[in-house]
């Protein structure tokens, strides 16, 4: 079981408020991703849940029990760190069994659980090595192994993939999702990478300056971002924002349109611009178009093989059904 409720949880370091009072509910078995730019307080929030930091105010409940002042060891949570944080002087086997030894489980049960975790994570051949002799991906798996043997109420992941190279990251992403499917245990995952958030989460919590900007499923956030921050943060490449006359025509202070919702054409369209840099990804091409009266270039998604060059004139037509309108506070206009 791993249902968590945060009530008015607050964190200050001296005079600096890192997290103003916030409320959050996490259901049992959910995969929740905290996402936000660096310094938004997502890691701090995770550490508050873990108990590695003390809350300045508020209450944290884990499965209905007040855990606010319970030390980390007694919260029944397992954590995977960005740096893996393996014990360098212990073998993989000792690393994975460490939490079991701390829990004073009998030797046979320890061995059974370690073997089982190693089998799941493809670590059986490496049990007698030390962390220094493993690759980054293997170390990360050891860290996950150390977390799963405890059979915790919830897993906490603190940017676990950011030290891995791009290819490995995609692989581990799938493995973690797979693990969640199998274990059905609550997972809280912190990342600054919105792709990780979109692909893994049941529920995304977007944080900005310690505040929760929006909570919802990946597609909810993509389709109906509550404000400009979420609109700009979720989706890749990011949403284009237009202000001025174009926005006024839609009765808004600003409008947003995603690159995939603009139709480019060499001959005709609602907006006219000049092609700047184009990024060819093979399957798609992203054109950065400079428009009269717009400070930032507008990004447009086009087909894979498009015949547009730097300096060409281009016409664009936004898909009317996908225009997001924002008021002068940056909030979404329904």
């Amino acid at each position: 079981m791993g249902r968590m409720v945060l009530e008015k949880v607050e964190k200050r370091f001296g005079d600096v408020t890192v997290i103003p009072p916030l409320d959050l509910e996490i259901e049992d078995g959910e995969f929740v991703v905290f996402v936000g730019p660096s310094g938004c307080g997502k890691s701090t929030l995770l550490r508050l849940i873990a108990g590695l930091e003390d809350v300045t105010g508020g209450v944290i409940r884990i499965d209905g029990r007040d855990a606010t002042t319970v030390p980390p060891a007694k919260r029944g949570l397992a954590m995977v760190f960005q740096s893996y944080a393996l014990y360098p002087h212990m073998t993989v086997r000792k690393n994975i069994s460490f939490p079991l030894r701390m829990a004073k489980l009998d030797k046979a049960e320890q061995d059974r659980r370690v073997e089982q975790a190693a089998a799941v994570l493809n670590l059986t051949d490496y049990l007698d090595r030390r962390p220094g002799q493993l690759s980054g991906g293997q170390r990360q798996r050891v860290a996950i192994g150390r977390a799963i043997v405890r059979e915790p109420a919830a897993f906490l992941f603190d940017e676990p993939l950011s030290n891995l190279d791009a290819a490995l990251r995609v692989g581990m992403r799938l493995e973690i999702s797979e693990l969640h499917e199998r274990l059905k245990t609550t997972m809280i995952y912190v990342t600054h990478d919105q792709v990780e958030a979109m692909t893994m989460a049941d529920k995304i919590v977007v944080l900005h300056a310690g505040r929760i900007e929006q909570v919802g499923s990946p597609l909810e956030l993509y389709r109906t971002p509550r404000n400009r921050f979420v609109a700009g943060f979720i989706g890749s490449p990011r949403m284009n924002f237009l202000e001025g006359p174009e926005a006024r025509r839609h009765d808004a202070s600003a409008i947003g349109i995603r690159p995939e919702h603009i139709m480019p054409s060499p001959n005709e369209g609602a907006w006219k611009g000049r092609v700047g840099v184009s990024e060819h990804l093979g399957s798609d091409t992203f054109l950065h178009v400079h428009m009269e009266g717009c400070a930032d270039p507008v990004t447009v998604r086009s087909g894979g093989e498009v015949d547009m060059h730097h300096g060409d004139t281009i016409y664009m037509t936004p898909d009317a059904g996908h225009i997001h309108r924002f008021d002068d506070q940056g909030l979404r206009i329904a």
Partner: protein
Amino acid sequence: MARAVTHQRKTLNTAIAWGIGLLIFFPVLWTILTSFKTEAQAIADPPVFFFFDWTLENYAVVQERSDYMRYLLNSVIIAGVSTVLGIVVAVPAAWSMAFVPSRRTKDILLWMLSTKMLPAVGVLYPIYLIFIELELLDTRTGLVIVMMLINLPIIVWMLYTYFREIPGEILEAARMDGASLREEILYVLTPMAVPGIASTLLLNFILAWNEAFWTLNLTAAKAGPLTAFIASYSSPEGLFYAKLSAASTMAIAPILILGWFSQKQLVRGLTFGAVK
């Protein structure tokens, strides 16, 4: 791309390194050579290098005149006990400063170090009086206490530096894994800090072994360590260079051998790739 270093350049660097090394080592070498000369050859002008009548006479005389083993025992006890005591006191201190620093931690560290900037002779008088009062003059206990206290700032600083290099996340991982504070220190921190603790022990042992100011001033015949033993041969009258050299060689030999064997320990790395 690796930097291209030419063969000549490498040879030159090696030659320079050896040159500097020999220059530094020369006084020690000269002392050792002199200890095998006769007193007349020791002060010969021009000085003789390798081609003299090698003799062990000086060692025999020195051993006959003064009891080397007693001085050696004093040195071992004073340096050893003061070092171990210092570590026992410094480990918790360094731990708290490295892992739960307060706003004043930096100040405390600097203040501790500043005590080493004080000329030792400045506190000789009060300490001497205290020693008379407590009847600690010329006792091993007294020297152990003084030696431990004067080296404590260095031990704390060294351990603090080593502990700081242990990534905090590993300790947090231990906490998350259900380890109590005692278990965290016993099973995670200490094993990881062993190379650091060992080098601190070693360096401090060497410092205490070589300490002369306090040993000369606070001991006489009974508790004098090897530094006092050497000093007893540096007399202004008579031809004692060869014997002084023999005494010095005997005094530095144990620590030189210890240092030689523990070289690896002194330079051994701290973490083995747990992070990154």
